[in-house]
């Protein structure tokens, strides 16, 4: 037996004594206490009387029951301690998993933003004058679920619920694709910019003034589930300049790899997707 296994045994015995010494003391005490009567009694027949007389038999039975009862209790306590440890570990795992579940939901927008950055920069090859946004249709509104622009000003969100009868997003949801490729320059002719948006896209001036990006070109495209039957979301790619984005390029990307990437994210993360309809169903 090597030094390490000897140390192991000593530790185990030490641990066992620390764990069970009190119970051992109770058993020993009970036996010694009962033995006092035996020691003080005259032992004419020697120790045979333990088996031949009623008091002796009762004493032996008492000792046996004390020993067996305590042994059984030890085993049971050991099993309970093991189960309690298991419960504690499982509770810790639940707490850790809960934290991870919350992280998934908490980081939904950040994860989607990363996904959309790849689509805009790598698959479409656009730069910091462009932006991509994804909307879900909820009742009679559109909910903004994801957005990315390299430009921090365009990347911002003022609100995430929009009425479903305004803008390119509404038209794309209705007609599968929609585009506005040359809006007036808001820096040069602001009035004409607002007027075009109001007359052509039903966006009043107050709404337009709240936009974080005054786009001059926009292309919208509905995203379908793989069977191509149901519309799942609308993607809007927009640019602050005229001539950078084209309808064909965006539609081709959304009907191909880029659209699949967006659909897969929506599908994969659906259980974590914030949905005001769900809160409304729950009376919140």
């Amino acid at each position, binding site marked *: 037996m090597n030094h390490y296994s000897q140390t192991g045994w000593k530790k185990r015995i030490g641990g066992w004594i620390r764990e069970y010494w009190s119970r051992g003391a109770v058993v020993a005490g009970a036996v010694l206490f009962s033995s006092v009567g035996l020691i003080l009694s005259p032992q004419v027949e020697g120790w045979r009387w333990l088996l031949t007389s009623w008091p002796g038999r009762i004493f032996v039975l008492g000792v046996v029951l004390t020993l067996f009862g305590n042994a059984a209790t030890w085993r049971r306590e050991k099993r309970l301690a093991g189960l309690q440890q298991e419960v504690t570990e499982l509770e*810790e*795992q639940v*707490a850790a998993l809960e934290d991870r579940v919350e992280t998934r939901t*908490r980081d939904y927008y950040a994860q989607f933003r990363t996904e959309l950055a790849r689509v805009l920069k790598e698959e479409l090859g656009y730069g910091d004058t462009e932006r991509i946004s994804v909307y879900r249709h909820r*009742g009679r509104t559109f909910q903004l679920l994801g957005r990315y622009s390299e430009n921090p000003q365009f990347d911002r969100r003022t609100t*995430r619920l929009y009425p479903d009868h305004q803008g390119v997003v509404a038209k794309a949801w209705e007609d599968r694709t929609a585009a506005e490729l040359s809006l007036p320059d808001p820096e040069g002719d602001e009035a004409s910019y607002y007027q075009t948006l109001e007359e052509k896209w039903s966006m009043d001036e107050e709404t337009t003034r709240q936009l974080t990006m005054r786009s001059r070109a926009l292309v919208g495209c509905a995203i379908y589930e793989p069977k191509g039957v149901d519309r799942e979301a609308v993607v809007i790619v927009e640019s602050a300049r005229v001539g950078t984005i084209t309808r064909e390029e965006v539609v081709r990307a959304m009907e191909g790899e880029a659209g699949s990437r967006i659909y897969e994210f929506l599908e994969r993360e659906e259980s974590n997707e914030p949905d005001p309809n769900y809160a409304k169903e729950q009376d*919140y």
Partner: protein
Amino acid sequence: MAELRDIVAYLCDRYPYPNELSNARLTKMIYLADWKSAIEREEQLTNLSWEFSHYGPYVPNVIRLARSEKDFEVKRGETIYGDQKELVRYKAESDAAAGYSTLKPEDKDLLDFVIHSVEDKSFTEFVKLVYSTYPIVTQERYSILDLVNLAKEYKEVAPLLGS
């Protein structure tokens, strides 16, 4: 106005799975109670100032209260992944008989509504519910949530949402 101490004690007493009541869950349940109250009564149940923090709707008051009041116990520990966890427990029993003095019957109804609406939900569903409420859906992270005004906005928008 209901005192936070009574609200936390009531939730700890009535929530059927006390072992699940982490600081995060308890705080979010109080957020749901405040949001529900803002929608239905045009005032919060508490006077807490909610922030849309990194941890969703958050106030530090719940855990501070649990740490400072002798009737509460905070079990602190670390999960097997090294994450911090804090379980909040209510130790005193006297309030159950006293009826949580600052809670009116309608406050208790509101808290019961919150308990019943989340008790059978998985944690994924619970978190999804919190993050799907109008203030969290519409406001930017790190903003202060004016629940009463947001509830007014929500009541205008809600009919446009699906059933």
